[in-house]
């Protein structure tokens, strides 16, 4: 007899039995938010010991423990050893500049596209260089960001050099001092694109499962994080962090912060808004630029990242665009927040993580030729992967997320041939091929009668 609908937190008892792997998987993590939720929903068990299949770690664990332990071939951790080359503000800029110089030396036209970060200097080291440049832009505002802190802490804006005189004179920040806290100083983007007079930035998620070949999955959805006060270029407002910094941690302190919506838009809302005002071409171009910006950041660290078959990383990219639709990268997070302040937020993050775990594929369900899993599109695997050529968009970013899995007929995406000469991919050939037509999440295609509610996994059997 049919069961009444089960609650959404029940483990997946209704999975199709075509999944050949019935062994138990173990995870280890200290996080207790969407990460924990997503892992539990897979039916995995938690462990404190070393028998884990997947360890969702903190960056400190990576730098302190990872090098000293031996991992079995099937164990996975969620960071690359030197992720800070991408995720620390000063190192990211250093790598971007270096890569651009390299492209210029090779006279590669791509070098011109590497203009998606504002003028940046690392302090205290580049202080003299910064001052030279500062004089050329007398009307600009500048933003100071400590490289080691997160959530907007320690960030401030200034216009006059004397405003940072105090900072500079503090002996901790002496260039000679090895322990000086490193800052980046950037030319502030003072003409951000505004919606209803408010500034926002965009958080996008990219999953990298290998740097050799560079394999990047980009999630179609993301967030726009709005500031709660109307934007103004007036110098008097420079101290108002709620206007200029869109981090949720800062916004939460604002009086007008709305905890129900969290001041966030989905990427689809942004897309609809832009399409209504500017049409398809402009919107598509913008989203394409955002995708390319993410890829270019990854290209610039590709050769120095310590690739390891045990590693994958889910990055949170923070982007912004100005009123002429020029895209800038603000920073890259190796450990994007997986806490949620609304139900929709939680659903998106759990879904995101579940898709990511599907792609990491410890259970061995993927065939290896998928180009989309859940909301993630494969956008690069040694070579760029373009969306379906008959689609009206040049990128899938911002598009709807259908329920089925998409497999490519392109050989380059399959497991047998690759763009590069990866050692890590040998293991794919040995994995069990148990993919079923039903799709990795066990949901029937749209149109079949009695479709189960995708979120709660309710399914009736008659």
């Amino acid at each position, binding site marked *: 007899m*049919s*069961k*009444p*609908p089960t609650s959404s937190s029940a483990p997946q008892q209704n999975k199709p039995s075509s999944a050949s792997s019935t062994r138990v998987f173990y995870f280890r993590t200290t996080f207790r938010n969407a990460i924990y939720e997503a892992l539990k929903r897979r039916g995995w068990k938690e462990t404190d010991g070393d028998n884990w299949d997947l360890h969702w770690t903190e960056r400190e664990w990576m730098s302190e423990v990872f090098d000293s332990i031996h991992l079995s071939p099937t164990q996975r951790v969620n960071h690359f050893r030197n992720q800070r080359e991408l995720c620390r503000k000063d190192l990211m800029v250093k790598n971007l500049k270096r890569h651009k110089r390299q492209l210029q030396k090779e006279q590669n036209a791509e070098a011109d596209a590497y203009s998606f970060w504002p003028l940046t200097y690392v302090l205290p080291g580049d202080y003299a260089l910064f001052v030279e440049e500062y004089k050329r832009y007398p009307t600009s505002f500048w933003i100071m960001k400590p490289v080691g802190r997160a959530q907007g802490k320690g960030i401030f804006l200034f216009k006059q050099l004397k405003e940072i005189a105090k900072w500079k004179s503090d002996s901790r920040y002496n260039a000679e001092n090895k322990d000086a806290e490193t800052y980046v100083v950037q030319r502030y983007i003072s003409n951000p694109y505004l*919606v*209803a007079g*408010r500034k926002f930035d965009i958080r996008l998620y990219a999953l990298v499962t290998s740097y050799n070949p560079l394999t990047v999955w980009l999630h179609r959805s993301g967030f726009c994080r*709005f500031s709660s006060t109307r934007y103004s270029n007036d110098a008097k407002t420079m101290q108002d962090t709620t206007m200029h910094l869109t981090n949720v941690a800062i916004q939460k302190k604002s009086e007008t912060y*709305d905890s*129900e*919506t969290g*001041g*966030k*838009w*989905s990427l*689809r*809302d942004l897309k*609809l*808004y832009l*399409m*209504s*005002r*500017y*049409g*398809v071409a402009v919107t598509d171009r913008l989203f394409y630029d955002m995708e390319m910006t993410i890829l270019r950041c990854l290209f610039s660290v590709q050769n120095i990242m310590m690739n390891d078959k045990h590693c994958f990383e889910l990055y949170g990219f923070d982007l912004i665009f100005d009123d002429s639709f020029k895209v800038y990268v603000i920073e890259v997070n190796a450990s994007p927040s997986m806490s949620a302040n*609304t*139900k*929709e937020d939680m659903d998106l993050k759990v879904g995101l993580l579940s898709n990511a775990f599907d792609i990491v594929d410890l259970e061995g369900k993927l065939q290896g030729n998928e180009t989309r899993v859940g909301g993630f599109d494969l956008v690069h695997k040694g070579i760029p992967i373009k969306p*379906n050529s*008959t*689609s*009206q968009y040049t990128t899938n970013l911002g*598009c*709807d997320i*259908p329920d089925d899995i998409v497999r490519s007929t392109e050989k380059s995406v399959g497991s047998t041939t690759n763009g590069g000469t990866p050692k890590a991919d040998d293991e794919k050939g040995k994995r069990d091929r148990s993919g079923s037509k039903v799709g990795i999440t066990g949901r029937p295609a*749209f*149109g079949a*009668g*009695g*479709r*189960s*509610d*995708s979120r709660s996994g*309710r399914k*009736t059997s*008659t």
Partner: protein
Amino acid sequence: MDQSAPHHPPHPSNPLNHHHTVTPSSALLSSLHLDPFLHLSLLHLKKNLIASSPTTPHTVESLKSAMLELGLTPKIRNLAYSLSCSERDRKSTPEILQVEQARDDWRQSIYDELLSVCSERGVSIVGPDTQQNKKIRYIFDSEDLFDAIKRIPCSSNLNASLCHNYGLIKLRLSTPDHSVLRTKFSELHPCNRHYGVDEIMTGSSKFIQHRQEVGVKVLQESYVPISRQYARYGIPASLRPEIYRVCLNLPRTFGAKEGEYYKSLREKARAIKYNVVDELFEMDSQTIISNSMSFFPFVENITNVVLAFSRDSWVAQNSTYAAHESIKYEMSDGTNVSIPSSGVQPFKGFVNYIAPLSLVYEDEERIYFTFRGMYSRLWCKLNVISSDSGALIHLCKTFEDLLLAWDPALFMHLLSVNVDPLSIAFSWIHLAFTNVLETEQLLLLWDRLVGYDDLLLLPVLSAAIFTFRSETLMCTSSAQEVKDILDNNSGRRIKVIPLLQAALFRECFK
């Protein structure tokens, strides 16, 4: 690929292939004669003709070209079309006694509630607000309207067995059945390509390009019935602002005159405050919009629009139905004011009708005039107690009749767990699905409402959702389970057009 099925005219999605003729009746011609806009236009035309060639006699050709130059042709054509439509729509049957009674009761109860809230606050409806006590509550919401309608009894002089036993609407109203709907909404047939289905399929770029090209031509024509025909197949986001404008017969450019008008409304709202009424509109906006995932950036704009709307007497004069009544108040200087001037009293969720437009239009002004146009043609029908075909009660009964016809077992099962299907679907219909669907889907639905100039798809979609969830619903054993399944949040995943197609043309999906 193959757009022409045997029983459909070629290129059905190209409305320029349709012929729209208006045979002027004498009544129409006299309306035209009386129209002030037309008078002004003809004067203008005359002046222009005389100025251009004072001595040579004027031919039909020169007249035509002068009209075209002045941009009068589309305006007059649309005017004639609108007048002919409203003539057609004019109510011909008198209202049922019970319904009239219910409408009067409803208006009275709104009036009473409003005054009671005023006295709770210790203020009069207009005048200085010196009270510290800011306590306020909604005067009514969807549930109250639903109760008012549920209470209407079946006409006593009819054989009781002819009255519907299963639904909540007791009135014996004739509703369109499946075959009538299939004919009326024949454009929705899956053999036609639609925005809401086809733009995400493989091979879609040709379809999208075609739609875009046709849409641009449709806009050049700027003729109401052609734009409406176009809208029935769904509108690309970039063309939606303009297509809606034509479908609602709004001015081509929002020039100084419209700008001034809107400014004056906002001024009126600033100058004299309606104590409880304004606060309720503001509260509605603050609570609903600020908490909305999609519309929170526009809370200020929407608040401005709703307050301006309340001061606009145009609404009271030009809406197809007067949903509520204004309260007549005599000011201290002897002047009489209607509160609010629009004749539309605030209720919980009213701003939902405005919100989606904030993602379509850039300017507050355009949001305002589009919303006003939609309210006066469509949303007023959702808020009036009338037995007219196409108004709320009729739509509710259509829903019940459809669900009973499509899935009687489900209907009975729901009754057996003490759930009246209408109790769930009512707010969907009343608020035109604004509280259910994801924004893009909602706009695709509204494209069809505007295109057909009809709200009948609201009950059709409601019944379609029930039948779509039928298998899961049949397994429920309590009212709470039913409510959980049909929870408004679950609507965020609904795809409107495939659902409507599956419901109306189910034989295509076997």
